[in-house]
């Protein structure tokens, strides 16, 4: 350890006792040299001397490496010896060590939320290396800001809640089945909900599955039986989740199950009923290529192994209208009185495995599906080549039932197209090669051509398949099919495609064309707000590090609901989700966010704005009209507080009082030269840290105030800063539209901009003094640029307007136009209106100028 260095040891900790006027408040300040990282630029002893003079400070102790074991021990000793009840560590970024020091003070018996940090390394010594004097001054300010904030910190309870030992898995395709089996095997109860009458999903209707081309139902069938038989799995088919309430560990779920009209236990799947049913309906399993009856089983291996009645098609289960099946069924398994029912379940965790929908070929009219019978989708092909399919496994042309002598396979259908879905489906390349090989296997004389754009055979064993296809004489042509036209007499097809490797048009005739279909997202209608991509797939909590978590604690995603993927990837992800869910179940208790919002009932005007701001549905109104926050759902972003007109929401550790205290201290000297910069914890603050880590030098004007999310920055903070004479104010958040760690906080913050600018206008504050920026954790350079540019802005002194600054809060003033709107009297001064308008244009023009500057 570096503390062994005798030289540094000699620099040693200095201890000074300071008396305080408030005996209740005993703040300990621990300025850190971080070796030379801080010490070489900032005069730490000077900072320490200054800290002693701050109100409430009872003890100041300099350390060389505060984060090292001895440094931490010294904090603990100081807490005991000096009766400290607040701790400020002035060292590196809280992102780096806040957790460390919270644990330190907790071990010394202090509530961990009573410890905060002043970031004098990333925000000072590393970015102002050539300006030690100003750096030291800035470090002092940051310490003073932290001390001011510490003075009002409150202990926060660290709570946890019991966890119901059961999982809800929604969707019983291969992903949902896998997740259920994993959790059930681990000993947890699983409620598995499936919309269809059978489990198995898309995999159940495939013929062979790549890359080894083994029989799909042969490998899936046994797994389906396992699901049906597992004592820990409660399988509910023909059912959908109707509502979910509660929170992680304690979800209350209501499931609606549609009437099946057949008793699962009594039905022996003999099929006698089908023989007498007079109603034909298109077969869902067979992609409408053939018919089934109104009473049916999706396919022989279906689980549960029971028939069901399609109520929309059935003529009526009584003897007057039909009732033939009832008459025929010897088991008396048909139950005409069956009704839809609701089932209430409790679950500690939820796994969403709701899958995707095959892309819709009718959305791509240039390829002729639906108009030309011999243009079929890859799923239709699966049924035609499947021994259990409508043709008993012979591939024939739907137009005349003859065997096609030439087949084209068109890739990327419904994928990589902004008119359908712009992403790649991840499976259509391998699917095409598989289809081609299956055709060659059954009909070696059939010519097969694959038209591809980029052949993405990325998976394990995929390249072998491609190699095999080449050896089988399958033609690969690089070019996406532009159009398919049908010959009017033969119903054969003319495929128009550019061979892009030879810049040559191919107008080739084929007897059949298979469209290799992509996927369409169907996620998003689950009754818990989980954010989705624009193409309706669930968004993971972090694309790399938390790929199966969602932003709602206790809710996990896997399979096609998360993104289009093949079977292997779905199974991998399902096991991952089960593993993550199992952690919560196994622990039995779940810690809830200590910093969750609380509503001050005496101030609340019950306007309900907060409800619309909360991305987690954590705020609700009870019967008496009172709004409350459900702690376990709240993630503490503070967006509700940012827009609360009465300031009635208490955000622990980020209270309005604390933030305003920081603003006040930041501006106590030479405010016109200062930039008050607000940065959100997950993106912008980390971006500013990165500028530090990368030693990106910039002027010392900024005083950064951290909050959980940019949604917390109310219009008041900018107003307060300007009232105190700030030279400039920055609101920085995660990039729009979808980077926000709290889903929508940045959107709500952006919506406040016009009100802030209007207020500034009324108070003669130049537009360029306020900036909204989007900075990610990777944009240190951008942070440096913003700081440098804003430092230029504050060089010009503020106009002498401070006395005229309106004390009316921004939001109150902004109500004016809406008042004017409701005014129904004839307008007496139409000219005045146009005047305001022209002013507005000017404003936006000057705004444009600022953006240009960036």
């Amino acid at each position, binding site marked *: 350890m570096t503390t062994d260095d005798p030289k540094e040891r000699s620099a040693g900790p200095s201890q000074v006792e300071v008396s305080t006027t408030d005996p209740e408040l005993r703040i300990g300040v621990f300025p850190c040299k971080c070796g030379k990282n801080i010490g070489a630029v900032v005069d730490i002893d000077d900072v320490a001397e200054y800290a002693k003079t701050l109100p409430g400070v009872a003890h100041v102790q300099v350390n060389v490496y505060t984060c090292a074991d001895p440094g931490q021990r010294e904090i603990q000793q100081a807490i005991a010896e000096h009766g400290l009840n607040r701790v400020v560590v002035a060292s590196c970024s809280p992102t780096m060590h806040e957790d460390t020091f919270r644990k330190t003070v907790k071990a010394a018996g202090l509530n961990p939320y009573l410890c905060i940090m002043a970031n004098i390394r990333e925000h000072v010594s590393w970015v102002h290396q050539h300006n030690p004097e100003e750096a030291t001054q800035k470090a002092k300010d940051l310490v003073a800001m932290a001390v001011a904030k510490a003075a009002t910190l409150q202990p926060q309870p660290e709570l946890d809640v019991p966890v119901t030992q059961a999982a809800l898995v929604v969707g019983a395709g291969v992903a949902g089945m896998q997740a259920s089996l994993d959790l059930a095997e681990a000993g947890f109860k699983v409620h598995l909900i499936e919309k269809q009458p059978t489990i198995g999903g898309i995999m159940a209707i495939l013929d062979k599955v790549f890359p080894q081309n083994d029989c799909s139902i042969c490998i899936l069938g046994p797994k389906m039986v396992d699901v049906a038989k597992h004592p820990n799995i409660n399988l509910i088919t023909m059912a959908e989740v109707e509502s979910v309430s509660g929170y992680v560990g304690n979800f209350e779920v209501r499931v609606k199950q549609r009437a099946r009209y057949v008793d699962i236990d009594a039905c022996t799947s003999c099929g006698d009923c089908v023989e007498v049913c007079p109603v034909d309906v298109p077969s869902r399993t067979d992609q409408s290529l053939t018919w089934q009856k109104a009473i049916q089983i999706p396919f022989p291996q279906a689980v549960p192994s029971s028939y069901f009645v399609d109520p929309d098609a059935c003529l009526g289960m009584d003897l007057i209208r039909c009732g033939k099946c009832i008459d025929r069924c010897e088991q008396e398994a048909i139950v005409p009185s069956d009704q839809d029912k609701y089932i209430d379940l409790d679950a500690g965790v939820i796994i969403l495995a709701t899958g995707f929908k095959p892309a819709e070929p009718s959305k791509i009219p240039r390829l002729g599906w639906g108009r030309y019978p011999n243009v079929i989708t890859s799923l239709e092909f699966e049924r035609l080549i499947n021994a259990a399919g409508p043709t008993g496994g012979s591939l024939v042309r739907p137009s005349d039932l003859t065997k096609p002598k030439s087949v084209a396979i068109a890739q990327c259908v419904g994928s*990589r197209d902004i008119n359908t879905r712009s992403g790649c489906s991840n499976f259509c390349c391998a699917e095409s090669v598989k289809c081609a090989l299956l055709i060659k296997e059954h009909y070696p004389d059939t010519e097969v051509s694959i038209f591809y754009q980029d052949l993405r055979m990325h998976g394990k064993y995929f390249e072998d398949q491609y190699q095999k296809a080449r050896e089988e004489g399958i033609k690969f042509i690089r070019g996406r099919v532009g*159009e398919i036209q049908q010959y009017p007499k033969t119903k054969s097809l003319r495929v128009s495609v550019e061979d892009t490797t030879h810049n040559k048009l191919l107008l080739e005739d084929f007897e059949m064309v298979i469209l290799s279909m992509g996927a369409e997202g169907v996620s998003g209608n689950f009754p818990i707000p989980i954010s989705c991509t624009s193409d309706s797939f669930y968004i993971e909590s972090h694309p790399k590090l938390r790929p199966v978590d969602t932003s709602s604690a206790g809710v996990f995603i896997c399979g096609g609901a998360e993104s289009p993927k093949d079977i292997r990837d779905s199974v991998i992800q399902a096991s991952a989700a089960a593993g993550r869910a199992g952690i919560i179940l196994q622990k039995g208790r779940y810690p809830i966010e200590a910093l969750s919002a609380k509503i001050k009932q005496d101030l609340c005007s019950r306007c309900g704005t907060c409800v619309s701001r909360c991305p987690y549905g954590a705020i609700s109104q009870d019967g008496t009209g009172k709004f409350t926050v459900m702690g376990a759902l709240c993630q503490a972003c503070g967006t509700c507080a940012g827009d609360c007109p009465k300031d009635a929401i208490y955000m622990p550790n980020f209270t309005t009082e604390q933030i305003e205290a920081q603003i006040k201290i930041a501006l106590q000297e030479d405010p016109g030269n200062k930039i008050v910069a607000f940065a959100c914890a997950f993106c912008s603050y980390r971006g500013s840290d990165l500028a530090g880590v990368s030693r990106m030098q910039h002027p010392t004007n900024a005083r950064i105030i951290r909050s959980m999310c940019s949604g917390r920055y109310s219009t008041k903070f900018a107003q307060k800063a300007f009232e105190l004479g700030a030279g400039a104010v920055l609101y920085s958040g995660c990039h729009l539209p979808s980077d926000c760690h709290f889903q929508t906080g940045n959107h709500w913050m952006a919506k406040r901009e016009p009100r802030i600018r209007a207020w500034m206008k009324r108070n003669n504050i130049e537009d360029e003094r306020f900036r909204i920026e989007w900075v990610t954790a990777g944009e240190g350079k951008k942070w440096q640029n913003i700081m440098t540019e804003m430092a230029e802005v504050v060089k010009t002194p503020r106009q002498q307007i401070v006395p005229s600054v309106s004390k009316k809060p921004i939001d109150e003033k902004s109500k004016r136009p809406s008042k004017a709107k409701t005014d129904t009297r004839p307008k007496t001064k139409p000219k005045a209106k146009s005047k305001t308008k022209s002013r507005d244009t000017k404003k936006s023009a000057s705004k444009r100028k600022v953006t240009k500057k960036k």
Partner: protein
Amino acid sequence: MLVKGRSQKRSDDMADDIQKSKLDALKKTARPCFQCGICTSSCPVFRVAPELNPRVSVDSIITKGEVPREGNEWLCAYCLMCDQRCPMGVSLAEILMEIKNISAREGKAPPDVIESAESLMADGCLSPISSRSDKKRTELGLPDLPKADPADVQKLFKATGAFEVLEINKAAQQEEAAE
């Protein structure tokens, strides 16, 4: 030939600026293209005249950063099939149109286009109005169509820069004829 004076030089610079900004805009529009070939396989002209390949035209803008020199874009019939089908939403027909715009400013417009522009300037109309067509209208009992003021047509033609482009092309034509 004219001896280029200072003012001539300046207007050349300005023309260069316009060309450059047009090319820059073109590059930006072309960028999303991922060379799938749907445009080309949908092109009725490519089917019979493979020298017009919209994908290759766009590729040359993306990879070489310049407008293709061969002038094949003038073969575009502007049927907008490529535009309709582009999976990246690239407006192929507009790109070809912009390429034509740029090369017209370089004096490379084909004779028929120059002819069309001249008849628009002269008559405000592309189909030549003959006594025969007038007679036919009378026979059919059709009304005389009111005509635009030729002076107005001239004004607009000049003010929108078409006159200048026309002059550049006529000069280029003459130069070619002389060679």
